[in-house]
């Protein structure tokens, strides 16, 4: 099965905290695809603010974002853009 995925290294100096997690959750809900974030061994659904915050992603950490579903192409594109602009 095809899964769209990209890697990203957080450049924001305080990592993914409440606001970006909220924005990420909101953005994710625009797509039908299932979006996940993997940081090290932990993984979370990007649509769940708490789960994302629980990852405790910090500056300099590399994450893997995956999107799977009918609109995965567009989702991955938009998400990558989001990370680049905000994190």
């Amino acid at each position, binding site marked *: 099965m095809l899964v769209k995925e990209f890697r990203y290294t957080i450049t924001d100096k305080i990592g993914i*905290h*409440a606001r970006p997690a909220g924005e990420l959750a909101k953005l994710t809900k625009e797509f039908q695809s299932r979006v996940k974030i993997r940081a090290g061994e932990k993984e979370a659904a990007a649509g769940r603010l708490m789960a994302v915050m629980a990852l405790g992603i*910090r500056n300099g950490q590399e994450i893997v974002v995956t999107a799977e579903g009918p609109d995965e192409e567009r989702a991955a594109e938009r998400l990558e853009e989001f990370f680049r602009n905000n994190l």
Partner: protein
Amino acid sequence: MNNSGFGILQRVGRSFMLPIAILPVAGLLLGIGGSFSNTTMLETYGLTRFMGPGTIPNVIFTVMSKAGDIVFANLPILFAMGVAIGMAKKEKEVAALAAAIAFFIMHAAISAMISINGGIKVLPAGAGADVVGIPSLQMGVFGGMLVGLGVSYLHNRFYRIELPQVLSFFGGTRFVPIICALAYVVVGILMYFIWPPVQTAISHVGGFVLRSGYLGTWFYGLMERALIPFGLHHVFYIPFWQTAVGGTAEIGGRIVEGAQNIFFAELAEPDVTRFAVSATRFMSGKFPLMIFGLPGAALAMYRTALPERKRAVSGLLLSAALTSMLTGITEPLEFTFLFVAPLLYAVHCVLAGAAYMLMHFFQVGVGMTFSGGLIDLFLFGVLQGNQKTGWLWIPVVGAVYFLLYYVLFSFLICRFDFMTPGRDRNQEAKLYTRKDLEEKRAEEEKSGASRKDEQSRLILQGLGGRENLSDLDCCATRLRCTVVDPKKVDEGVLKTAGASGVIQKGQGVQIIYGPRVTVIKSALEAYMEQEGGPEGSLPAGEAPPAEKEADKESRTKKKRKTIVIGSPITGMAAALSEAPDEGFAQGLMGQGAVITPEDPIVRAPADGSISFVFPARHAIGFMTKEGLAMLIHVGIDTVKLGGNGFKVMVQEGDRVKKGDSLLRVNLDFVSKHAPSLVSPVLFTELSEGQRVRLLKEGPIRAGEAFLAVETEEL
């Protein structure tokens, strides 16, 4: 039932809570005092020597009985005033006064009509009554309701009336008692003609009951309950208890008439081996109903109350249930649902009839002095022995009744969302109100304030603003105010607002307007309430639109589950929209509210577990045991402090109890180094159909009910 009718009925019900609150204590006084000073009872048990007339216990019980009785005897006027107070929109005290006056006048008018037409003797037995000392018609609580509703209608219509200058002294609130007095002269005369036929029709029903066996007994019980709100039950059951309608028997060589008389004659006769069920069929049914059934209803009401208000209603319901069980006085409990949910009362009546019928069927022969509580059951059932009375059937049927009432009431209350005590959401602070209020305000400003509001605004301005006004009253022609700072008073502005003179002495300010002053005062009060009233509240009687919609929704959807979360911090609570951060304020991160901490310890808001502690230690993810995900975010932009100022006391995965310490915040440090201490407390993952309500604004203590999450279950 249409919506507005339903709304009015609910308001009537709510207004009844005031007089109802006194009933349990009055019921206990009357029940205990009455039973232990009842001479028949004392003679039967040979207690006359210790507790008979002339002894100290007798004095105490008699006084108790009278003290309780006076409340029940005057229930009609208490309800007249209670309903008027509850239904009046403003100037409630005037409505209460007007209700008392109207009540007196209505009964005086009836009384006059009675004496003109031949006196009370020509009325059927039980039709007349002494109402607050006036020989009038027995109208029961219905008479009080009639007055309360009519007066509040007239009051709401006329309390701001402006009369021509010559009569203007009688304008405004002073007009209310006047118009009510006149109206109720007419109502009284009408009642004289309308009421007796109603009473006669009721007493004819008696004949039917006697002719129809078990069915008749059922019907008797049903009617007796159904007539209580109208005060007509006396007309109905007294003939059964006291006259030949209830049967005739020969006991110990004398002819005795009436069910209760037969029972007590048998009680006094040592030879009787079994009490006549033909007599007790009109009494025994009360026992399973009052000792078991109604307390079941009370439990159902308690269980269906909003969780955060359970404590508040438990006192009312528990005492009312105890009163019913112990003394058989049921009004305190019945009135809590009669007006807000007439359907429940209808069900209650049907079951009441069935209770009488079952007792008749099982040949239970327990009588009573006046009602069916534990005291009477013990004296006239248990002490007489099962052989004579068959009283053991009472707890058997009673247990079934308790369950039946509990299940039926619980089901119906949830199904129809009846506003039984503790279910009325309108009495609490809500999340949307502030926004709605602001929108409303903005609209009003756009459409241009009315002339009266303009005047009120000028008066307030002339007095140095709302904050400067500490007290407001009026006499015949002057507005009498007390101000905080006399220097802020501006006579010029007050005169532009129509004052013909201003007198100022120290902190007292008198503004002379002439006789119109009562109208001006009412308008000013209304203006202040609407303009700067306690935030989050709307003028009485208007539910915010969002709430109305939600209500509608809740009626179509079936059930609602509420989870209440305590405050994690001691401080000041406010709506989420107050958060000085757009993301939080707009609900991007979730729904909830904010607290400005005044205590350094952040505590678990409920039982649950720690989902995570953010590396910067300023935010804690919390999962309640029900599975609600919460974010407690201390301060705004505090992530940038990099953990400084926070000391964490828990770890990810820890299970905690409500109130356990989670985090210590250095308030000084954080307030110096972060943009704000305002701390959002959010539910981050609500599903559709879940709504959050803010339960308290302003000062709040850690652990105090703070947010409620309502889940609608389809």
